């Protein structure tokens, strides 16, 4: 018949006492850090506190004479968030304006060509004639 191991009743207390004794030695080891290491840790702590100060300092308003505003970072008012979209809107409007300008320019040039063709003494069908093209290539001399 197999039997499961019975937990030792004083194991927990013995473990705790052993652990505390080891911890006492480790405390001594931690207290005996090299000065350079202790200095680095102190610098790290100071840098952390500096970061904390930076995180918690009131954000300075961009408008309104530099008045301070309290609140967590990244919680700007609606109008400030809308302002951030201005450059994007300006770019979209610029692209649209350029496309519009180019389309109108193409239409104007086509109109100019059409007007010249229609007002010329030569009928437009003449340009489709091979003989006339050859005539032009040879310098248009009779």
């Amino acid at each position, binding site marked *: 018949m197999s039997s499961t191991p019975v937990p030792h009743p004083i194991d927990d207390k013995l473990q705790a006492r052993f652990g505390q004794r080891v911890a006492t030695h480790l405390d001594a080891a*931690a207290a005996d850090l090299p000065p350079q290491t202790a200095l*680095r840790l102190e610098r790290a702590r100071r840098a*952390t506190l500096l970061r904390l100060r930076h995180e918690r300092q009131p954000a300075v308003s961009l408008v309104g004479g530099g008045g301070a505003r309290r609140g967590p970072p990244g919680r700007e008012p609606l109008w400030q968030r809308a302002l951030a979209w201005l450059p994007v809107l300006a770019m979209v409007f610029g692209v649209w304006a350029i496309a519009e300008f180019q389309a109108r320019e193409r239409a104007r040039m086509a109109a100019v060509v059409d007007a010249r063709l229609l007002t010329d003494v030569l009928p437009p069908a003449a340009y489709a004639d091979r003989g006339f093209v050859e005539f032009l290539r040879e310098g248009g001399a009779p």
Partner: protein
Amino acid sequence: MASEQELDDFLRSVERRAFKRTAYTVRDDEAALDIVQDAMMRLVERYADRPAGELAPLFQRILGNATMDWFRRQRVRNGVIQSLHEFAGDAEESDGDLLERLEILHDAGVEGSDTAVSRRQVLAAIEAEIAELPLRQREAFLLRYWEDFDVAETAQAMGCSEGSVKTHCSRAVQALARALRLRGIVP
């Protein structure tokens, strides 16, 4: 929300132990310093609005994560397959009376640390054996007995069950006791 003074006091109280614990794990003092600083920064960036009483378990959790991140970066950098979780695969201890024997020796003052070897050598030996423990066992042992966390707090900091914490602690104690005994040290 913890005040700046409370945070300063808290960090001052844990920084040396945090460094030592990390150094036992990564075995590189420079890296340990970087990891501790990283953990301090993460604590402030993410949890500065928490009350001072909640900082300890949060910091231990962050420190553990920062250490794991370091191992991941090292693994990527070196291309070395390195076990991130040295889960205890060691066999169950059979000599349950080892601690009792150590206790008797300790109470009797036999083979005490002052008489057997010098204090500094004892410290070095204990630290070496702590560093040799599997990661989870070491974390559980140090959080329970050095950081003085209870089982629930240790489980929260380690992200595991309370049963696992007890198992890790028990195994760590057994392993340490045996290793120190072999070195002739009764802590």
